[in-house]
């Protein structure tokens, strides 16, 4: 068992609303070449195991792990696919290195959302086939229900939710990888067409294409290969009830428990005073507020007011989604959490360009697997 694990290389392509000239394999290849070059490793010689994240229905291919090895340089190597978010993949790579059996592991996540002609129908196919599917519930209808319950329980206002959109899409203007940067007002956000009241169009992230690859190493290899390792202090993940009827709607117990697991490994007793910045789920604007509370980064019901007061802005005490989040970068399907982790790595390395936050030591990434799941993951990192 080896305790310390680091991310020593990152590479990414995107993010773009459409990528007509590249297949998903070409996207992954480009991201992989960049990550291996960043880490200074040769995948055929050095990488001992590979982890990918994907869902069959997003790919339009059954048993999608068949198509993962070649573009990663992983043929005839130990490769596995996790049907989870990129952060579940990162947690898997972290566990593999901690067993002491592997010193260098590569992780891949991607989205070719622009290839999917019927995404709303596919996401609706994640609902219970017996109890819910006959009701023909649209996924965004379920998100609207959850938002409504959250607002009702916490007295969070529509304006406070809109502030999340304004902040994240402005942040995205400083991120050259983010396609959805915009300078909006709260009024413009609130005036966008309703999807499922109280959820409006601008409060839901649009999709993007992209691929992200990371190289994860044991302490010994990290020290010999890298002068800017980003250490994984803790990783946690958790599920609540998959059934719409028996889950908690206003709060996110799965994120609370995932965070607790990660904080325990990291030895963090008081996340509020320890975490310097966070990249968290904002698939829908209200999810950022809900997640902040579940992560223990503010008290229950307080996130809206704090956001309104600039607490989570890049200049605030706890910058949240400086990258632009999913609202600014686009939602990357199963790679979404990996995009959040990528920003944490770039910030901790001091390589975030115009959006660099000063004096950061500990960053947190968090993800959610979208409607109708109650599955999320948290990873805490430091430089």
């Amino acid at each position, binding site marked *: *068992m*080896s*305790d310390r694990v680091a991310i020593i290389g990152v590479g990414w392509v995107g993010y773009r609303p459409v990528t007509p000239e590249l297949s998903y394999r070409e996207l992954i290849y480009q991201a992989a070449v960049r990550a291996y070059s960043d880490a200074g490793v040769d995948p055929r010689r050095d990488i001992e195991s590979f982890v990918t994240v994907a*869902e*069959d*229905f997003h790919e*339009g*291919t*059954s*048993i999608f*792990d*068949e*198509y*993962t*090895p*070649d573009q990663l340089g*992983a*043929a*005839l*190597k*130990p*490769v*596995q*696919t*996790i*049907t*989870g978010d990129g952060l*579940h993949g990162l947690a*898997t790579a*972290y*566990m*593999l290195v*901690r*067993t*002491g*059996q592997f010193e260098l592991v590569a992780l891949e996540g991607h989205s070719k959302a622009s290839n999917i002609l019927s995404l709303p129908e596919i*996401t609706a*196919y*994640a609902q*219970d*086939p*017996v109890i819910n599917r006959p009701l023909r519930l649209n996924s965004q209808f379920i998100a609207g229900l959850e938002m409504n319950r959250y607002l009702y329980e916490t007295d969070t206002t529509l304006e406070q939710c809109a502030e999340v959109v304004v902040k994240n899409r402005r942040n995205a203007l400083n991120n050259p990888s983010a396609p959805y940067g915009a300078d909006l007002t709260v009024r413009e956000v609130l005036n966008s067409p309703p999807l499922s009241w109280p959820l409006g169009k601008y409060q839901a992230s649009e999709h993007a294409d992209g691929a992200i690859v990371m190289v994860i190493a044991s302490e010994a290899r990290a020290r010999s290969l890298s002068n800017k390792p980003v250490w994984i202090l803790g*990783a*946690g*993940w*958790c*599920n*609540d*009830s*998959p*059934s719409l009827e028996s889950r908690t709607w206003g709060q996110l*117990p*799965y994120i609370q*428990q995932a965070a607790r*697991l990660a904080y325990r*490994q990291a030895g963090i007793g008081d996340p509020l005073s320890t975490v310097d910045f966070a990249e968290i789920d904002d698939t829908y604007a209200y999810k950022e507020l809900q997640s902040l509370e579940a992560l223990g980064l503010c008290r229950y019901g307080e996130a809206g007011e704090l956001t309104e007061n600039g607490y989570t802005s890049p200049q605030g005490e706890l910058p949240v989604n400086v990258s632009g989040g999913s609202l600014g970068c686009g939602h990357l399907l199963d790679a979404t959490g990996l995009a959040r982790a990528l920003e944490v790595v770039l910030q901790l390395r001091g390589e975030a360009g115009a959006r660099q936050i000063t004096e950061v030591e500990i960053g947190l990434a968090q993800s959610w*697997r979208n409607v109708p*799941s*109650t*599955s999320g993951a948290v990873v805490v990192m430091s430089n």
Partner: protein
Amino acid sequence: MGMRKVAVIGAGMTKFVRRAQETAKELTWQATRMALDSCTLTMDDIEAVCLGTAPDAFDGIHMNGEYLSDGAGAWRKPYMRSYVGGGTGVFVPIQGWYHIASGLFDVVLVVAEEKMSSYYPHAQAAFMTIFDHTTERPLKPNLLWIFALEMNRYMTTYGISKRDIARVSVLHKRNAANHPCALLGEPEITVEDVLNSEVLAYPVQRYDVSPVSDGAVAIVLAAEHVAKRITDKPVWIEGVGWNLESSYWTNRDLAYPRYVEGAARMAYDMAGIKEPRKEINIVEPYDPFDYKALHHLEGLQLAERGKAVQLYIDGTASRDGDMPVCPSGGLLGVGNPIAAAGLMKIAELFWQLRGEAGARQVPGNPRRGLAQAWGDLMQVGTVVIMGR
């Protein structure tokens, strides 16, 4: 630091059947409950859950792992689903192994489920969607055809007869007659029966193939200090290996599975095994087709290339032979609910090594066993070595 030791401490499985009345979730829960009962634990003792199930297309549910989570007992617990196609059943215990070996967890539940009958009229059509969308799907390939190609290549390369390969099906189906969960146990089956069965895609005939099935299997894994407290008969995971070959299956020689060799060598290294033929007492190679058991025994370095069938001819593979092969009855006899079939092999080794296999018990107090699965586009090998 030394590696944390991980043991299997409990196992349970449902009957393997053609069309289960239960939903996929219910099957999952039944196996989970039996595994917990077998080691007198409850869900409160389980710290994390790993699930294995093959393509979402069978159940027709997007993010099927999320849907099955509460059936597998993963309510408010860390939960992940891994997959490597048909190799998943022997991969998901590897996933459980690294959950514990990493030091993050002490007790992990591992569940594998497959409900193939939901795909109507026949699951075979779901396999149309595993092929490359540009180069292969337009040819409308059928899974049986590509395995007929591989079987033909294997027979031609080494000069092996259909009559000899049929011995595999006979032995496994006879072994399965003693398995209470088996779908196709047949104590009286003969080589002639196999050779006279319907031709599906020459050289593959009906009795050369395992049946489409529904079922679930679960096991409980524990770290050394917990395992020793709960049972005086822990079965240790001594070695694990997995290996994925290129997607371009049309470019490789189908006569020999290099990926199985890669997975086996990784597991042997970890278990400190130098001479597998002498050190493995029981072997459960993946046998969705009879020739595949031979193919895999060779990849596992348990037989010379082209010579695996000798193990069946000289009786080495029999239940009372020197190295029993598939004493469970394998996929050919017990059934093939894909991910569950692989984990069934792990459960079989658990029962055999503890001396709890009943009428299937291999004599001579076997000390060490190996289970292997295979999948994707004739592409992935997964191996677990277990010992007392």
